[in-house]
């Protein structure tokens, strides 16, 4: 569980996050949604310590991450797995070496155990056949899956996904969404997904936090979202004529 307490962040005079309070639950897919520039990326980068917050605390299962020094944070970060928007795979390493990387740096396993673990992770994301390809030789969807395999290599407690479906077609997006959900349930991780993909919201949104101009305006589940009376959220979710029609029909049905 990650408990975010009263965090605020400004860049010069611009306030990006205002007094955010939220609890991200273990074993669930927690989604942060919001418009571009709403502050959701800053929130996620603050959670993992890539950006220092001005005020407030981030508590990882009782451990106050914001109050820790560099070495203490390093220990907590070993429990993190993160999938970046573009995958952030290391270009000079092939797929297998990318997955082996965290194992080589942190694991005390033998060489054969590490290889077994890396192959297991690649198998988990259905990419065993691509082990010897380089990032430049694989598609965007495959890169995301390799990044997921790398993120789960050390059995993380906390998984972070920054726009996991950006640049992917709807079918591949669903494959990635399902993979994220399966992994979250299988490993009981605290999974946080930063997205503005509405398919993901409706597919895997077990807990959804809506950020609007740096404020948390709403939180709930994918079921609650259909009946929300938050106008900013409705404008965001049901932005197109098509989605408004769907909402109207659902309301009529219920």
């Amino acid at each position: 569980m990650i408990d975010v307490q009263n965090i605020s962040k400004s860049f010069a005079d611009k306030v990006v996050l205002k007094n955010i309070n939220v609890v991200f639950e273990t074993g669930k897919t927690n989604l942060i949604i919001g418009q571009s520039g709403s502050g959701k990326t800053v929130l996620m980068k603050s959670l993992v310590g890539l950006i220092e917050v001005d005020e407030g605390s981030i508590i990882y299962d009782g451990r106050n991450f914001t109050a820790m020094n560099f070495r203490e944070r390093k220990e907590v970060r070993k429990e993190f797995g993160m999938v970046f928007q573009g995958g952030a795979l290391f270009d000079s390493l092939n797929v297998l070496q990318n997955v082996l990387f965290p194992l080589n740096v942190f694991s005390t396993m033998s060489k054969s155990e590490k290889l077994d673990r890396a192959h297991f992770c690649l198998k988990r994301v259905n990419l065993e056949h691509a082990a010897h390809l380089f990032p430049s030789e694989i598609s965007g969807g495959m890169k995301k899956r390799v990044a997921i395999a790398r993120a789960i290599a050390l059995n993380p407690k906390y998984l972070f996904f920054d726009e996991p479906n950006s640049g992917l077609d709807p079918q591949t997006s669903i494959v990635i969404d399902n993979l994220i959900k399966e992994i979250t349930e299988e490993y009981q991780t605290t999974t946080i997904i930063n997205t503005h993909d509405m398919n993901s919201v409706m597919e895997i949104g077990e807990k959804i936090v809506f950020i609007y101009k740096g404020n948390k305006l709403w939180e709930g589940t994918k079921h609650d979202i259909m009946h929300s009376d938050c106008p900013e959220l409705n404008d965001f979710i049901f932005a197109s004529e098509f989605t408004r029609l769907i909402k109207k029909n659902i309301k009529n049905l219920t």
Partner: protein
Amino acid sequence: MRMLLFHIGRYVLLMKKVFSRPEKGRVYINQTLDELVTIGFNSVGIVVIISIFMGAVITLQTAYNLENPLIPVYLIGLGTRDSMILEFSSTVVGLVLAGKVGSNIASEIGTMRVTEQIDALEIMGINSASYLILPKILAAVFFFPFLTIISMFVGIFGGWAAGVLTGAISSTAFIYGVQYAFVPFYVVYALIKTVVFAFIIVSVSAYEGYYCQGGALEVGRASTKAVVYSSLVILLFNVIITQMMLAK
């Protein structure tokens, strides 16, 4: 002035991070060996080519300017040797390597920054500055003195070949000049300069890449800045070291 102080301060903090205790020694050893090939071995070709031509030109220019019959002709060999050892093999080769190695380092690290690969390292709990920059510094500081020594020999050989082939000086006179009044301290001076230049090239270029922000355009700018700033710092330290080591 304020910006200059800002960059110097940030550079010092980055170097502090680079030289902090590494995570796992073996990973760093492998990285350093890889960098020895990328930064060191892969630069041998350009150093050899440049040095041959520099040595040849020094010999021909010295011969052209030695018109007085009272000045012994073997001084052409001596001049080529001292020019190569004192300045060309360390400083000029350093400037060439700032272009080749420096731009490569800045664009490599800059690309890693803009594609979030450095963030990925940080998230894993790895000291990204140390992991990426320290092996490059170690490789350059270890290998560049060998490049300087290669440059000295090849440059003097280039001078000999140009002098003999053009008839500007006989082989015997040139070799006599090369051996005449040799000061071994000059080699020590050149090697010390090389070690300092190696550190400057890698650290300044890595600094430019590490703090690069934006996209492909900014990576290109970082690469250009890396070459310009490392060249300027090399020239500055060339004066400082020369004053410290050779001034009477």
